[in-house]
């Protein structure tokens, strides 16, 4: 599974990081700092929850 982030749409709510802190990395202003990443087996449910948390 791969997560693709639409960086331009990020509004800095930081919900993804709060729900799945190890996966969604933030910059100094708590905007998403990655444009995507591969999800390891075992972390897929967490990654999905993090994505769903985005307003």
């Amino acid at each position, binding site marked *: 599974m791969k997560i693709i982030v639409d960086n331009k749409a990020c509004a800095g709510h*930081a919900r993804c990081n709060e729900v799945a802190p190890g996966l969604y990395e933030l910059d100094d202003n708590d*905007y998403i700092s990655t444009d995507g990443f591969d999800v390891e087996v075992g972390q897929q449910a967490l990654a999905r929850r993090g994505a769903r948390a985005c*307003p």
Partner: protein
Amino acid sequence: MNTDSVTNAIPSNVPAHLVQDFDLWAALTAQGENAYAWAAKLHESMPPIFWVPSLGFLPGTWIPRRSEELRRILQDPETFSSAGLTPYPMLLGESWRLAPLEVDPPDHAKYRALLNPLFTPKKVNALEEDIRQLATQLIDDIAQTGRCDFNEDFAKPFPTLIFLKLMSWPLEHRPLFQHWTQTLIKSSDPQVVTDNAREITGWIRARIAECRANPGDDFTSYLLASQIDGRPLTDDEMLGINFLIFIGGLDTVTSTIGLFFRHLARNPEQQAQLRADPSLISDAVEEMLRSYSIVNMRRTVARDVQIGEATMKKGDIVLISTELANLDPEVFDQPEKVDFLRSAGHAPHMAFSYGVHRCVGSHLARRELRIALELWLTKVPPFRIASGTTPRFNAFGIFGMEELHLEWDVEETK
């Protein structure tokens, strides 16, 4: 303002069977302690979207009750505009707007970008010790008395002091701020609201003038030094952002915390559950945010749209009732039941709204609520509603406790 002619007119696009002749806010207020259980039942008795002829002194409005529909509305600012959603500038006969709350995309993001850095999880982490210290002081003052006026002794001063600290505004103005925000948001009398809005804008304009002459390191000076589209903010923009901060930052935690503590006072077994296992406090905060949501916002329909049976016309008003969304049985089993074990971490509740206008202060609010619960349960013995008092609930605009007195048994110290 001639409210009668506004409230009684039912627009031609509203079919008779969707008109429900009650004022949601007045009805919730009348329900008192039963308000949220009563609101949960609306999901059984009301159409998915219904229309009420008035809300307090505000005109008739559509009320969608389903979480799914409310979420879609919040994610579609092109159809559902936030422009003019508060009455304050209009009541004063002025034309500024509460930015970014009343600003739609794409301009919204420019204002939001000014506020975001002040409320990040990192900023909140840095405030943790201050929050803890302020809460400790307030609680230590009352722990030995065995009784308190919860609003005056804790729920009002706690978030107000943190807010003034965060803004770097004078702490000694606390009583003024408490008075203003309570009456501004909670009063159902347009004259009282207007008078208070005038006083608040007066304070802000004086602050702006002061900071312009002598820039400091406070919030207002920060805004004066900020730019949008490569230009400094106008006076109206300065006023609007500062005014919004008043509304968002002060009363919301006061109101929420009052409802939390009434619940714990009325449910000693759940209070004991948290005392026995403080690691549940974060989940309890989320579950009580869901169970006791306090914010009702509005949107204005910007282009004709059909949702289910509701034909909404440009200019119609739509209520965003976070409590109805969070009591929706399609999302939460037995929604009226407060169950700290329900969410196991992250329930998809809408207490902080959704979409681009989602609450910028949510990280701070959560932290304040968690710390307040932790310290109260550590420092104060099991508390209950004070004998001879009746908690009083008000559901006008932002819901909350008007009166809440608590008592507990104090051990004799020798």
